């Protein structure tokens, strides 16, 4: 575009941008910026048995402060998508912006915290030392490290476990430590890959409630991979339903429960309606496959 046209072009594009943002940010009053902007993203693996389309033409916009769940059967690319956003894997085509910058730059700037399926705590470090690990790497001062370790352990209700080693904690407690660790350097974006998948139902419900409170308190953007329908509906502001071979998005469902919700909403008709829509989406993805 020639430079002479700029005076008109600039305000116009701003206007257009705000329109898009308003649409994606639902009813939020101030227009929110995009935390994630994925356009026509594809990722193809070369395996011994030929090419596998892990992701095919995925497009998705997520505004700051949203809680978006990704649900789908295994092999649908939900974990791959999260890993691509985290710059742990490279897409083969398409564009991706994280907080307005490239995924690689976002990783180098430590813009996100990642919680894996397993707690992946370092067994030779105490809980406090585990929490301090990213802070050590990022060069925080010793006193700052101590303060943050204390603050984030309190946030996940684990004060008093500083001197324990990981094996002395239950699986649920370990996963809470790993969440605190991901939050400790205060990233605006939290990427969670089936963080409660290995836990039993009761612990899981409890952690879901805690996670919601945490999200409400901190105002972070959360991307949450799961294969549990109730978990997805309970936690999210939006649910992205995915389907395998090729990995793609087949439905995006808005989920307008108030930010402060309790487990009881799972009995309401609205909840069951959304859960039903997710189930239909998943079934459609499966039948395509059969």
């Amino acid at each position, binding site marked *: 575009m020639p430079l002479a046209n700029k005076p008109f072009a600039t305000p116009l594009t701003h206007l257009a941008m705000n329109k898009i943002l308003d649409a994606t940010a639902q009813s939020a009053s101030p227009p929110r910026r995009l935390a994630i902007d994925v356009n026509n993203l594809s990722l193809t693996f070369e395996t011994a048995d030929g090419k596998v389309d892990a992701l095919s033409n995925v497009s998705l916009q997520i505004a700051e402060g949203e809680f978006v769940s990704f649900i789908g059967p295994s092999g649908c690319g939900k974990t791959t998508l999260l890993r691509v956003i*985290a*710059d*742990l894997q490279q897409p083969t085509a398409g564009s991706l912006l994280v907080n307005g910058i490239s995924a690689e730059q976002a*990783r*180098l700037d*430590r813009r*996100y*915290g*990642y919680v*894996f*399926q*397993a707690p*992946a705590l*370092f*067994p*030779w*470090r*105490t809980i406090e030392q585990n929490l301090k*690990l*990213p802070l*050590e*790497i*990022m060069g925080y001062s010793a006193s700052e490290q101590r303060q943050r370790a204390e603050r984030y352990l309190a946030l996940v209700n684990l004060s008093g476990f500083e001197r324990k*080693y990981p*094996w002395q904690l239950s699986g649920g407690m370990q996963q809470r430590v790993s969440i605190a660790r991901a939050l400790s*350097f205060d990233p605006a974006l939290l990427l969670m890959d089936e963080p409660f998948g290995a836990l039993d139902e009761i612990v899981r419900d409890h952690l879901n409630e805690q996670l919601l409170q945490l999200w409400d308190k901190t105002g972070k953007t959360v991307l949450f991979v799961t294969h549990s329908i109730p978990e997805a509906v309970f936690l999210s502001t939006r649910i992205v339903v995915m389907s395998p071979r090729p990995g793609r998005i087949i439905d995006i469902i808005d989920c307008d429960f108030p930010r402060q919700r309790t487990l009881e909403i799972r009995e309401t008709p609205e909840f069951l309606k959304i859960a039903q829509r997710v189930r239909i989406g998943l079934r459609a993805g499966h039948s395509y496959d059969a």
Partner: protein
Amino acid sequence: MPIGAVALPASAAATFRRHPLVLRYAPVVTIVLALLVIWYIAAILMNLTLVRDGFEREETPYTLSDLIQGTMSAERPLLPAPHQVIAAFTDSVFGYAPTAPRSLIYHSAVTLSATLLGFLLGAVFGIALALLIVHSRVLEKSLLPWIICSQMVPILALAPIFIVVLGAIGLQGLLPKSIISAYLCFFPITIGMVKGFSAPDPMQLDLMRTWSASPRQVLAKLRWPSALPYLFASLKVAISISLIGAIVAELPTGGEAGIGARLLAGSYYGQTIQIWSALLDAAILASGLIGLVGLTERLVGRRMGARP
């Protein structure tokens, strides 16, 4: 009460069997006793002809018990009896001043210093090599075959070459022996540490990446601590090998001092008892060294929160 009278000693025996000390040491003691019995029988059988020839040469009449007594106390037996070895060992350990050339303590100290220096050199070299190999695929492909080849050549053939070459450039005494010892002991350390440095969970490596940790931070905070169990396992193998290396290195030097020198002198003069007591000395040193590595491992493990 005949039943009670019979039952009482039986239950006492049961209590004895369940005593913690008995539970702990009974297997070891049993094995040692069995080995001693086998050793004595072997000593009698192997020295029998020797002793009988001796009696017949001197044309003295002898009985079976004379023969057996002879096999237990021959001056240069084919296989010395355990008590002979132990007597010679205690004599050469406690019978002389520690600095006397006949003292085993003196010889042990000579060999031990070469062993420890060689072990240190080998450990540093072995770990450095493992780092290079883990760091680069190309280095793995180019270095690993040579590392394996280096261990194919018998050290007994290499040792004199080392001594001569190093002697020509003015290196004598402790250092050449240590280098031979290091040459042998770096290998298990390299192999163990290549495995150890690649031991971290992919998830832990991914975590470090999400924090954009530098390669040096990944090494210091993840790869190195994950490798420690492998390090100690390979150090235990390496330290006994470095003792063997030091002993072998003492053979071609003409045997001035050291356990190797005692072995050489013993075989020159047919002093089998001296050879065996030097061997016993080497075995005690080796188990002491392995024990020290094990102790360090336990201390480090405790500091790193290992499960008790």
